[in-house]
């Protein structure tokens, strides 16, 4: 599948944004956040900023961005529509959470409830995003039990490093969050390695004989293509540029997205330059997750290309 920049930005940036909101809401609900009046509203604004940037980027993918509002209508059947609804529905409780924190304080019941509601909706949004891909039966690298948990784990990890960085910049040391980011980074790395092992051992979904209804003939080989130049199906679904570099890109993704942030989180947890280390970890994770997401698309094969012998 062709990795479109707008979709890479959507899934990566909303992972950071909604991941951060999920952490803030959960920690506030449990009463684990310091009662500084401005820290939380600033963090919520940054989280919603990441999410908004991703959502705006996604509209660049559309042939008709001005019609994007129509995508809220088909939530009964479409995961893309559900993602849109959940993404928007997270904003009011998140804004209320920040406002109530500032007005009523960190300990108020209303603040905590708003935080938990925002956190739940943030998780639901990321889950809906993951299901857009996980529900597509023609793409075996997406339609499998890894996709949805992976997206949630990556969002938890993204939010953890971002919150660790904001905390360290604001308050200095951030031992607990740095350890959380370290654990999340290792969990995310494990999930990604398991995913790569899984797709490498998958079998093709169908044979050309089944795709052409010629099973009774045994083998079927392509002879002539219908057209000698590319068409939409080959451009969109038959993307192959990345596959020859996949091994190197997987190493780059694993190091930048997970290993380097894990190392930097470990450094921060030992109170060595916590703000610098966690900020570097966040930037490394952002770049690494973009590479990881690029591979998620570039390594995905679509069953329709079997008609072209691809």
């Amino acid at each position: 599948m062709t990795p479109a920049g707008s979709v890479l930005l959507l899934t990566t940036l909303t992972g950071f944004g909604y991941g951060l909101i999920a952490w803030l809401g959960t920690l506030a609900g449990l009463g684990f956040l310091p009662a500084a009046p401005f820290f939380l509203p600033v963090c919520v604004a940054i989280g919603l900023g990441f999410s908004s940037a991703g959502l705006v980027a996604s509209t660049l993918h559309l042939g008709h961005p001005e019609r994007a509002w129509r995508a809220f209508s088909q939530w009964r059947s479409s995961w893309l529509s559900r993602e849109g609804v959940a993404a928007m529905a997270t904003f009011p409780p998140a804004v209320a959470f920040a406002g109530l924190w500032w007005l009523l304080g960190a300990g108020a019941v209303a603040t905590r409830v708003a935080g938990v509601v925002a956190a739940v909706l943030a998780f639901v949004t990321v889950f809906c995003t993951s299901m857009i891909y996980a529900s597509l039966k023609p793409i075996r690298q997406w339609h499998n039990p890894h996709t949805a948990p992976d997206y949630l784990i990556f969002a938890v990890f993204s939010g953890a490093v971002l919150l660790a960085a904001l905390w360290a910049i604001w308050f200095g040391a951030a031992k607990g969050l740095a350890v959380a980011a370290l654990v999340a980074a290792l969990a995310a790395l494990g999930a990604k390695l398991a995913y790569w092992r899984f797709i490498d051992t998958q079998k093709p979904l169908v044979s050309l004989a089944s795709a052409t209804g010629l099973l009774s003939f045994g083998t079927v080989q392509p002879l002539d293509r219908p057209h000698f130049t590319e068409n939409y199906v080959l451009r969109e679904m038959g993307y192959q540029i990345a596959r020859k570099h996949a091994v190197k890109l997987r190493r780059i993704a694993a190091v930048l997205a997970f290993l380097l942030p894990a190392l930097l989180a470990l450094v921060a947890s030992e109170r060595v330059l916590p703000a610098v280390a966690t900020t570097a970890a966040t930037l490394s994770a952002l770049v690494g997750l973009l590479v990881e997401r690029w591979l998620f698309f570039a390594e995905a094969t679509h069953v329709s290309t079997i008609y072209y012998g691809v």
Partner: protein
Amino acid sequence: MTSLPEPQPGGKKLGLVIDLDTCVGCHACAVNCKEWNTGGHHAPLPDHNPYGKEPHGVWFNRIHSYEAGCGSTSKTVNFPRSCLHCETPQCVTVCPTGASYKRAEDGIVLVNTDICIGCKLCSWACPYGAREFDEDQGVMKKCTLCIDRIYNEALPEAEREPACVATCPSRARHFGDFNDPDSKVSRLVAERGGVALMPELGYAPVNRYLPPRKATIPAKPLERQHGGSVNALLKMLDMVLSR
């Protein structure tokens, strides 16, 4: 609505039967499809650089050729590929706007290009590669089963069939109602063992393909070993030359 419609009692299930035994791979169906549809329901269809080095555009019908089997019994099979108007099409249910829909009354899968946002998700959901994106208009396009021909009262009744069916010179394409057990398409499928493509993916495609016939006419032996019907002169020559 992109939820699938409940099947209506007495509703039709319109689709095509494509005979892989008689298809000669002439691409006439693809050309007539393009010709009709660039002026029809989804008009116009992109057609860039048509006489240049790298022509490209949107076509609803693409004709592949395959070699089926191997060795002396292998066959060249010409294979037209278009929308199969599936009974459970994921291209419809993934649509976030309601632009992609399946008609309750006859099962035709269509795109309302007035509300399509051009997210392309429907094309990702189609395992048959049947949908092609119109870059010029920013919307998705697909086979309409020539909805503007089959119900078109301005056309003589005999011409109310899809353009691909009307033009096929070897009568390899048939159009009809699969819900009617006595229709031509239902009978062809029953008699010839019509098959669905990739049934294991669960899209329940309506269109059926008739596999090439395997029967061969037994050839006469080149020489007869025994018997007196062979010309006596040839028999004598054979004896002389065989020494």
